[in-house]
């Protein structure tokens, strides 16, 4: 059952991504990508490794997080319900089979597509900064969201008002329960990570609207749809969604601030030279703080570095302070 759902998800999202590449990315960017991909991979490798580590940690934390949450026991369900009352019910009063089908599709397929496609779209840019910002923002979303989940216990509308809020997704398409319960615990609804990740993509799409104007429109549409779908399907409260948007904003802002601040490649290179200049030595000090898993990122780095050591400094130079806009012309 699960493998079938996963296969279906993979096929549908792959198709959507392929179509989107044709529509948004275009031949010329793909051609450049074929020539430059090594350098771009190298530039994005540290943050990718960091994201991978966080995702791995996430799967462990989801397993044990609820036990810790129940020991801390800040249960927000009733306060949330008390404050926002029946907003979800109002939203669900628009229920119609077509709308349910649309939002169910968005919640599963649209969401995954929304997260996957920008990775490819930004990878197709010579300037790797948008890509690194995106991956950094994803990482921050998970780190901060998970941190909040540990402290706060909250159940979603479908658990509070089962008879009024039809848990539309799981009753209309029970197979998805198998998928989502692999990644979600029912006490983790505040904030909505679905919303925050979708909003993150939308915010970044806004930053790169000059490069991908049409994608910005689609991302906005999808982002709003994902946010509404979580409420319409009875999974999140409006407050969770609002908190998700705030979280996304914080993550995007932080990502903009953090990306390009430290360069692992430069740091490795400076270690090699064993003659650190003053500017890179600050990087040496701060790097362990930002990277909870220095072993994995610095471990993967030298390998990529070993191939073409000469390109490393030049690769790390233009990223600081460069805007995505001037890059395209």
């Amino acid at each position: 059952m699960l493998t079938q759902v996963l296969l279906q998800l993979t096929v549908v999202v792959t198709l959507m991504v392929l179509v989107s590449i044709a529509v948004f990315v275009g031949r010329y960017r793909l051609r450049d990508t074929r020539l430059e991909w090594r350098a771009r991979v190298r530039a994005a490798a540290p943050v990718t490794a960091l994201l991978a580590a966080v995702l791995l940690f996430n799967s462990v934390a989801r397993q044990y997080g609820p036990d810790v949450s129940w020991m801390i026991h800040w249960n927000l369900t009733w306060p949330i319900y008390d404050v926002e009352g029946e907003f979800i019910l109002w939203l669900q009063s628009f229920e119609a089979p077509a709308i349910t089908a649309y939002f169910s599709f968005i919640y599963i397929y649209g969401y995954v597509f929304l997260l996957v496609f920008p990775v490819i779209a930004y990878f197709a840019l010579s300037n790797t900064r948008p890509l690194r910002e995106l991956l950094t923002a994803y990482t921050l979303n998970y780190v901060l969201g998970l941190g909040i989940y540990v402290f706060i216990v909250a159940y979603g509308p479908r658990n509070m008002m089962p008879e009024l809020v039809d848990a539309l997704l799981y009753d209309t398409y029970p197979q998805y329960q198998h998928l989502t319960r692999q990644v979600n615990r029912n006490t983790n609804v505040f904030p909505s990570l679905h919303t925050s990740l979708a909003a993150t993509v939308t915010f970044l799409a806004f930053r790169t609207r000059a490069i991908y104007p049409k994608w910005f429109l689609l991302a906005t549409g999808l982002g709003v749809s994902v946010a509404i779908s979580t409420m319409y399907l009875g999974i999140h409260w409006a407050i969770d969604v609002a908190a998700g948007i705030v979280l996304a904003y914080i993550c995007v802002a932080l990502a903009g601030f953090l990306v390009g601040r430290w360069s692992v490649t430069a740091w490795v290179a400076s270690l090699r030279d064993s003659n650190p200049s003053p500017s890179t030595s600050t990087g040496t000090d701060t790097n362990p703080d930002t990277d909870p898993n220095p072993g994995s990122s610095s471990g993967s780095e030298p390998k990529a570095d070993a191939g073409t050591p000469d390109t490393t400094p030049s690769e790390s130079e233009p990223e600081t302070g460069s805007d995505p806009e001037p890059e395209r012309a």
Partner: protein
Amino acid sequence: MSDPAPSASPEHHAHASDDAARSGLSRRSMLAATAGLTVSMSGCIREVRSIVNRDEVEQLSLTISTVPADGDRESIQLARAVGSALESVGVDIAIDMLSHEEFRRAILVNHDFDLYVGPHPGDTTPDFLYELLHSRFAEEAGWQNPFGLTNLAIDDRLDAQRVAAGGTGNGGGEEDGTDTTNENENENNDREDAITATLESVAREQPFIPICRPTEIRLARSDRYEGWGDGHPATRFGYLGLEPQSESAAAELRTVNTDARPSQNLNPLSAEYRERNIVVGLLYDSLAVVRWRGDESTVAGGEQADADTDTDTDSDLDPDSATDITPWLAADWEWTDEETLHVTLREDCEFHDGTSLTAEDVAFTYEFLADTTRGSRRFSAPTPHYRGQVAAIDDVTEVSETELEFTVATSQPVAERALAVPILPKHIWDERTDQASLRGVTVAEGTTEALVTDNVPAIGSGPYQFGNRTDREHLTLARFDEHFTRRSGVDLPKPTSERLRIQIDPRSTSAIELVESDSADVTLSTLESYVVDDVFEDDGEVPETTILESPSWSFYHVGFNARKAPFSNPRFRRVVAQLLDKEHLVEEVFHGYAEPIATPVVEQWVPDSLAWNGNDPETPFLGTDGDLDVAAAREAFEEAGLRYDDDGNLRVRH
């Protein structure tokens, strides 16, 4: 005076009491100051003092604890119904949603609640009321008087019920109940009268509000097995003695459960994780087993009274039929005198680890359940389960390897019920008498390792043994080939499939889909009532499935914490009971797949005075068709001695 804030809305409660404290203090100090300046006569000072030192009577603010809709859709709906009824009569409420484990820990172990809504596992005879309501159990964990009810009149009734002579006999049908055609009627009278007296007192006191008894609906695949429904599917007999119709069915019986707890913990003594005990029944044996009369079609053990001829429902398992107690691990038993029960075990039984099961293990089990510290500490730690049963046994002596003598202090039917506790291997549980320890944490007194262990792998002697498990995914059991039911000459339901897999799937809809798509054979947990109509509709379309409809002895109820005001006031509890239209709730919440009840026992024991008559005979609903007559309800509270303020808030000292 204010309650320790229940967990749901700490802010809420804290605010209320903060405000009160602040206003109280400022008012007091101000008055005292002005009084000191302006009033010189001592008489006036005294009057001021008596004004100032009176505590405010505040609006009643309470928290209703319950579980989220995942896995138990009904409780939260009932809780919200209770909440809105209380709000309409001027009570401030909050609902605290707790996970299944936390809910049971709060209610059954810590007794930290105001009101709760949830199911009680119930029992086939009314004897469970003894441990549920007797004041001597008010300090204990588990379904041992979680309400903290301490009422000497009820204690007396329960004590009388426990010794009232009923039918005698060995595994016979002595509990044929209220059926007037029954020949045992005279013998039963004392016991029946005593039970009626208890039930009437309990209904009067309303330590909890019994709401309804749900119908258990399960979905099974009839193409894979025959024999569904021969045994009650809430017991081990629903899964033993099935006839596989194919090789793959003989290899694995695939069940699906909405509750993840069996995949997490296999401790038969856990207050938080054990409920319906199906898994315990498969892993552990007891001396005797309780069977519904419906079980007998495949079982030819023990003498049976004739089945009632007036069964009129379409179900095989009629709630009117009696249950009886049949020898299981015990080959036989015999009453040598009024208080001595001589039990003979089956020969050569083994635990799953190969250790032989002897009378020593049996004697150990009864001693251990009464105090899991085994006397190593002054502060005893009785098990949260099986307390009432074990308390019926005064003493157990081993006569030989396979023979024991039980000295009992109760009537014989009550004592025989004590034979249904799981037998634990001494060599494993004897190691678990120590206080559980956690570095840097003070562990609550009475928390022995036995009560908190996961007990994985579980070593019992039952028909299935532990195979493997994955948290929140599955528990797989393997057939125990040495089990006595597999011997030739033993005519009892036996394990047929080589493996029994319990797949965890948190929603009824996806569980149904697993059965309909031939990925599972039966839903172990009952289907939530909102999908039942759909299941009946689908039944025609998927001919390979069959619907198992069985009566239930579990019931939904609202429990009060009688340790706190105003829930300690029976008049208050009775008015709250009258705020609920049980019949309406059954329709709305259970879609009709339940029966409203006024008393928490199975139908055959319900006295005429407490039979449902379209309304609750003891605490009739104050209103009609689900609409509460708010004015009448407020009046009822005022008659009960509670008071309203000008804003319509119910004000109570609490």
